[in-house]
């Protein structure tokens, strides 16, 4: 047998194995927030007092009608929903969260203590069922659908909410969560407060006539570098601040890999970044070394703003506050 052929075959075999390993690395980075301690945790030990509400039904965004009668043990699959639940005063009932839950600190602590379901897009059924939840709540991004089916098959009410990507959607989101939890009055109050804050921030932004081009670049260490475009919650924030979403405006839809050309085409005057992800990359200095970044108007004027990612684009109870801060950062001197 030909020696060269064997070498090629060996090379390919190695590649296959390495490819498998790379896949592994990817999986572990996404779940690295939940290392070994999760295996030893026993989250089902303490049980808060049962909170029975009047039995009601809710038709989710997936068209499934769910009957909810007990909200004593809630598993929240999205960080923004967790924030709303805590803001409604039902935080003590939350027994499990997903890795995107970073606020409030009591909720983030659940993640650190191992009371996590991991990554909500790649759920495993038992990772949720081990909390013995009486209600599982998530939006349309959670999956895979077979696992949602398995949870429902196990008799657990799973409510899937529409994924909101606009500032106006914040109201719908809060009201829906409150309705599901049997707290419509608290929900109406919270929605009114948050929408009031959002409107105030919008008005503040309207006082400035310029409409700068702003790009949201999502970084998480050196591997993940995405340009956000249309249909992302960041578009709602940028447009709410009276600016132009440079990604969406140049035809970017959803999150796309940030290429130098895409960024130069977007020509943002300001680039907004996630704080923790930027720090993991090595700060603005390292970010500026990425091809294309320094040549954008933002790069030339050193116009970068970093916010905690959940704070900036969760579109939850803190949306108005975040928008206000964003507007004041964008237009210095506005509103006094």
């Amino acid at each position: 047998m030909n020696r060269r052929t064997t070498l090629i075959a060996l090379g390919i075999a190695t590649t296959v194995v390495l490819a498998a390993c790379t896949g592994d690395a990817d999986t572990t980075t996404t779940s690295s927030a939940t290392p070994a301690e999760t295996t030893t945790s026993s989250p089902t030990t303490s049980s808060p007092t049962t909170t029975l509400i009047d039995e009601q039904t809710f038709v989710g965004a997936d068209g499934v009608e769910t009957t909810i009668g007990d909200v004593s043990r809630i598993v929240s699959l999205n960080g923004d929903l967790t924030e709303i639940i805590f803001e409604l005063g039902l935080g003590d009932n939350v027994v499990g969260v997903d890795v995107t839950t970073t606020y409030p600190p009591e909720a983030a602590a659940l993640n650190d203590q191992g009371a996590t379901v991991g990554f909500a897009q790649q759920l495993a059924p038992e990772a949720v069922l081990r909390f013995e939840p009486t209600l599982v709540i998530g939006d349309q991004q959670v999956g895979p659908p077979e696992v949602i089916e398995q949870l429902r098959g196990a008799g657990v009410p799973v409510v899937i909410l529409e994924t909101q990507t606009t500032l106006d959607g914040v109201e719908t989101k809060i009201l829906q969560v409150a309705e599901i939890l049997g707290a419509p009055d608290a929900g109406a109050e919270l929605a009114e407060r948050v929408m009031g804050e959002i409107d105030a921030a919008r008005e503040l932004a309207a006082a400035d006539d310029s409409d700068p081009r702003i790009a949201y670049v999502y970084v998480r260490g050196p591997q993940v570098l995405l340009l956000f475009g249309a249909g992302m919650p960041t578009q709602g924030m940028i447009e709410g601040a009276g600016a132009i979403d440079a990604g969406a405006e140049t035809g970017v839809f959803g999150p796309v890999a940030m290429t130098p050309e895409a960024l130069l085409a977007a020509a943002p005057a300001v680039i907004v970044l996630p704080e923790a992800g930027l720090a993991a990359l090595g700060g603005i200095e390292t970010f500026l070394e990425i091809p294309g970044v320094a040549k954008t108007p933002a790069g030339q004027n050193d116009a970068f703003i970093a916010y905690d990612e959940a704070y900036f684009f969760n579109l939850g109870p803190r949306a108005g506050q975040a928008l206000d801060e964003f507007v004041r950062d964008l237009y210095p001197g506005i509103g006094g």
Partner: protein
Amino acid sequence: MTDSSELVASADPYASRRRWFIPAVALGLLAAAWAALSLGAVAVPAGEVLGVLAAKVGVDAFEDPSQQAEAVVWGIRMPRLLLAFAVGATLGLVGGVLQGLLRNNLADPHLLGIGPGAAIGAAIGSAAGGVQGAIAGGVAAGVITAFAVRLLSKRASIDPTMIILSGVALAAVLSAWVGFIVFAADRSTVPPIEFWLLGSLTGSTWRALGTAFAFLFITSIIMLSSAHLLDVMGLGEADARHLGIDVDLVLTVLLIAAGAAVGATVGAVGVIAFVGLLVPFVVRRVTGPSHRSLLFGALASGALFVAAADLVARLLIQPVEIPVGLVTAAVGGPVFLWLLTRRRDA
């Protein structure tokens, strides 16, 4: 008496190995089944696990299971275990059949490209009709790819490694197409690229099991009944023809069966590589070259291998699960390498 039994033993040096192989695999299957049903992120006491099983066969024994225990053991772990058994058995069997058919013991349905080809159909099918659409699409595309592999292997038939090389190239191209489909499709209906490259049993439901099993059962019967024909065809196609075998018919039927079987597994659990390579290789060393014992042995051992690999995938960093294909590749990849280097030395 003594003389004749010694004669038998020397005529079949594998007889004694086969004697311990069957109980060993049977014990392994039982152990894997018990572990799969009783271990997991949700703690279910052994008594309750037995209680669930007893209740299902109409016996009121052991502990009275809670509703949660029944949902977990019967609703989640049982279909997953059975799907792991069915998929593993099929992949082991298909590996044995393809290796006989192509007279190449490096043949693995996924390394040859049949799995990635089936994944194209399965990804399209999943966009149209969930897991059942995925299985139907996988079966259709699997059969087509099986014939494409046959055409390739005819051209490269002088050097067995060339067949594998052309298969690996084909697999790379087809996997790329799977990627195009996944990234173009709606993320909420089509599983992500990891599923199609590395497989996962996380979404195992009774419905997925039922649909896949219908295909796997029929195709396995066909493949198992081909053992004698594969023995004869091992002499070479020309000799098999001289012995009165309709070689083209056998090839056609077995390729359809193998392609459909692989396609059904891909639709249900994605591409789990190296099972079809590793399992027949190990079994052949125990049972000898006769296809009858090889195919039955590969069926049972394949079931054991995938069920065990899925246990590792599920429990290693629980509650987070890793793709089962990582585990099979971690075990199977080195064996593949060793097989390749050994061939050069020979």
